[in-house]
């Protein structure tokens, strides 16, 4: 029996081999085309996204080792024990038990999973806290139908569908909604979090290089949810300060009427306001959700009381 290699023994008919080649080519083509800049998750622009990417790669590689082993074992089995005439390998129909082997593949996955679990726990707790001693820029985010409203409580300006942030300074997003749930996501800066009415969830991100990033809602919320796109421009601190000053001085103020206009079910472009009604952000939470120990940081803001 001539020895033939690899996967082709699984399907000896020529047509199927051709199909396999075509499939492999199609699957591999995008890989060959390289990880261009479209792969936003692979080009993090901040420490949070970078840690998340590192962990993604770590977990993927660890799991790939197991998967590769399984596939190799499967192919070897198929080659050796295919039902064909004069198969030299022993046929053992009653062999069904091997204590050592069975415990081996109980232990190996457990060890591999422990190797994934430990950094998971560490990173999860680490990302739940702002870096020590940092003085974050606070931005209050409200998702509306189908637009994003941003308020800067310290600068007391508001924008729609667009924000600017300084680089190398953590930004604390306080997320809520006056609409169905959405998910606030800036892939190049870090992971997403849901915006929900009646809750204010904290999420901190940071940009360590200047640039224009896109963010969007990752949770379906209606017919125009696809247009819930916003842009984030990360600039140096002086430019950021200049930008806020510019908005404070040259843009109109947001009134409650403006806010009610934003509550309509539609999409709008970028808007900028030199001030906003003090009650706009908490009132969207219908008066609850700020209690319960989930958001102690709220009391630090003199503007809010």
């Amino acid at each position, binding site marked *: 029996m001539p020895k033939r290699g690899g996967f082709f023994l699984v399907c000896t008919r020529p047509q199927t081999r051709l199909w396999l080649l075509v499939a492999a080519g199609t699957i591999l083509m995008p890989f060959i085309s390289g990880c261009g800049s479209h792969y936003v998750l692979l080009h993090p622009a901040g420490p949070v996204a970078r840690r998340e990417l590192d962990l993604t790669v770590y977990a993927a590689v660890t799991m790939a080792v197991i998967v590769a082993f399984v596939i190799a074992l499967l192919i070897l089995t198929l080659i050796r024990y295919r039902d064909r005439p004069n198969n030299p390998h022993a046929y053992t129909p009653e062999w069904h038990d091997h204590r050592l082997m069975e415990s081996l593949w109980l232990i190996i996955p457990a060890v591999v999973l422990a190797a994934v679990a430990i950094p998971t726990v560490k990173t999860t707790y680490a990302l739940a*806290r702002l870096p020590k001693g940092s003085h974050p820029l606070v931005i209050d985010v409200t998702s509306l139908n189908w637009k994003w409203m941003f308020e800067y409580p310290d600068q007391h300006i508001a924008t729609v569908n667009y924000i600017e942030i300084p680089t190398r300074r953590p930004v604390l997003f306080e997320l809520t909604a006056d609409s169905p749930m959405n998910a606030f996501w800036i892939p190049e800066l870090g992971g997403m979090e849901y915006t929900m009415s009646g*809750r204010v969830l*904290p999420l901190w991100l940071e940009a360590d290089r200047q640039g224009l990033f896109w963010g969007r809602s990752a949770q379906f919320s209606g017919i125009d949810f696809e247009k819930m796109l916003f842009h984030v421009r990360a600039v140096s601190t002086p430019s950021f300060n200049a930008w806020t000053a510019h908005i404070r001085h040259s843009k109109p103020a947001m009134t409650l009427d403006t806010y009610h206009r934003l509550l309509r079910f539609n999409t709008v472009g970028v808007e900028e306001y030199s001030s906003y009604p003090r009650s706009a952000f908490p009132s969207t939470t219908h008066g609850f959700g700020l209690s319960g*120990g*989930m*958001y102690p940081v709220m009391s630090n803001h003199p503007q809010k009381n």
Partner: protein
Amino acid sequence: MAKEPSEQIIWDEERGEPEFGFLRPHFHQEIFPTSQIVGYVLSLALTLTSFLLVIHRTFSASPLLVAILILAGGQAGVQVGIFMHLRESRGPAWQVVPLFLGFFIAGGMIAMSIWIMMFKWGGY
């Protein structure tokens, strides 16, 4: 009686064929409904105890809550054990397994839901 369950095959007269299962009946026939009366008295006592505990605010809130939950659990035990004949069955009392699994899952469901919905963010 032999211990091996597979060897105990009972002849099912209605069908004229063997019926599998080791019949371990727990049926007990009483002359006087003692257990029913005991159960009734116990259930009344448990309920009234918890009611009085709460009305008179015997303990502070959390021990009181624990106390009345324990009393309610005892009440459930009385109902299941005495009135519902939990261990009665023709063959092994298989209902016990899903019942306790169900208790466990129900408790976990309630406790976990409360825990999740508290949204305790690890403080900033």
